[in-house]
């Protein structure tokens, strides 16, 4: 294999394109305002990013398996709200955290069960859950957002070190563990196979329903876990927390090279996608552009990323077909 070829095969990997886009944006905003990359700004941006990284990883893995979850934003609010309320009811903090994270798992299970058992699109099943979980969160606030109980061990998850918060290390832990699972374990192989071609995967003996269920549950759990981290950081459980997060995390995954049709994507891509969105937001503010432009920037980025990835994958396929005709 020539060195030339391996370079080309590297460049057609979608997450590599995302990484180049990330570098371009970082350099561009740095030129616009040098303080964009000083320690203070990096501390601010990387303080809020880990929560988005964790949700984006869950969404990315679920999308690779060929399904969607629109309820992550609502689960992101529901889980910490129930944890806080349970502590107020006198449940020990760690047990409340355990029960709260179980709610994320249960919501993921219900999403998966409805999608798989009734054979309806996960888009619809989880759209329903988006409203249900958000409504439950508001009901759980009992009219007024409760105060944050300081007996909760929030420092363990969000302690501010010199530059980064503890939450970044949690996010990295999630990324490494799930990256190894997706890219190196047999389960990862089943996830790609299921999302790539469900019929082919099941004809080779893979229990595709179980694989998808696992991804739904993982996604629900991660959304709840990330929501808990945000509440621990803000020290305030807000019923509106995670509003529109479902679309933003799909955006992060897609910008990171995850295919809407399943079977393609990486954990690294989702991580870069999430970081990219947060730095884009910060960069626009630092460049003294009206912050309302953030959504326009994000929108353009999504379209550019997908157009680019589609172009690249068509080209890669054409290389193969030309070769076949030789």
């Amino acid at each position, binding site marked *: 294999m020539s060195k030339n070829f391996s370079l080309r095969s590297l460049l057609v990997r979608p997450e590599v394109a995302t990484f180049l886009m990330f570098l371009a944006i970082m350099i561009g905003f740095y030129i616009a305002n040098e303080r964009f990359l000083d320690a203070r700004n990096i501390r601010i941006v990387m303080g809020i990013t880990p929560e988005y990284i964790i949700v984006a990883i869950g969404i990315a893995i679920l999308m690779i398996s060929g399904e969607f979850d629109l309820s992550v934003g609502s689960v992101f609010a529901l889980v910490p709200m129930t944890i806080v309320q349970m502590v107020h009811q006198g449940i020990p903090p760690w047990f409340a955290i355990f029960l709260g994270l179980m709610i994320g798992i249960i919501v993921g299970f219900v999403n998966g069960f409805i999608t798989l058992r009734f054979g309806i699109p996960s888009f619809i099943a989880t759209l329903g859950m988006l409203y249900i979980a958000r409504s439950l969160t508001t009901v759980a606030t009992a009219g007024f957002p409760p105060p944050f109980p300081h007996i909760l061990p929030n420092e363990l998850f969000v302690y501010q070190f010199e530059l980064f918060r503890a939450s970044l290390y949690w996010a990295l832990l999630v990324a490494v563990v799930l990256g190894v699972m997706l890219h190196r374990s*047999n389960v990862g*192989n089943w996830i*790609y*196979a299921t999302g790539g071609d469900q019929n*082919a*995967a099941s004809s*080779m*003996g893979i229990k595709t329903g179980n694989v998808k269920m696992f991804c739904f549950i993982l996604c629900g759990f991660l959304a709840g876990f990330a929501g808990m981290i945000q509440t621990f950081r803000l020290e305030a459980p807000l019923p509106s927390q995670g509003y529109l997060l479902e679309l933003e995390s799909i955006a992060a995954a897609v910008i990171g090279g995850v295919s809407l049709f399943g079977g393609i994507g990486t954990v690294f891509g989702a991580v870069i996608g999430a970081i990219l969105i947060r730095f884009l937001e910060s960069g626009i503010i630092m460049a003294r552009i009206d912050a309302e432009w953030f959504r326009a920037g994000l929108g353009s980025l999504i379209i550019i990323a997908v157009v680019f990835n589609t172009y690249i994958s068509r080209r890669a396929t054409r290389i193969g077909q030309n070769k*076949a005709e030789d």
Partner: protein
Amino acid sequence: MEDIIVCEGLNKYYSGVHALKNLSLKIKKDSVVGLIGDNGAGKSTLIKILSGAHQPDSGHIYFEGNKVKFKSTKEAMNLGIETIYQYSALIPEMSIARNIFIGREQTQYNVGNFGLMKTKTMQDDAMKALTDVELHLRSPDTPVNQLSGGERQGVVIARAMYFKSKVLILDEPTNHLSVKETNKVLRFVEGLKSQGVTSIFITHNLSHVYPIADHLCVMARGEKIADMDKKDTTIDHLTDLLVNG
């Protein structure tokens, strides 16, 4: 020669439609059997039953002399019956090596059924499996969507060989392939015989299977209408059966 698969009186209904009517069939070991018939003849129903994807409503299947009842494709695969479906045998975006080992990954550090894949071993074994069927591809990491149709069938056959399949069921393996690619696939299938693999070659194109088949079975309207060795028939006779039922 002994029979590797014997079917006795298989029947299958799909919501009232009698898709397979009292089908009995004997398949000799190490032979190539051509299963031919027009669309809707019941070929697909038969292979779905043989591969464990569907269960017959009545009748029996014997594999190597033992009565078997497959509840899933996995059970049939474990006994050595591998089925290659027309469109869905490989995952296009995944690499050759990963495709070959889907569902049967070589793992280490296992916890229950889960473990980390031995990537290097899988890559080496994939290349070896390809070489064994005379398929010479550049790298085991090439995504399958960069291969030609014939090469893809070669990868699938290499996979079946690697896992020591005894019976290979090929569903229309030459559909939509160019003449050159078709010949390539036919050579793969012919090579299987000498390696102790029985193949059931399903097609509606008689001219593809006739040159390599030892035995031919013609189906129409869910029934078997002819079942004979190639030496006892001619291509004209078979064509007549196919057209006029």
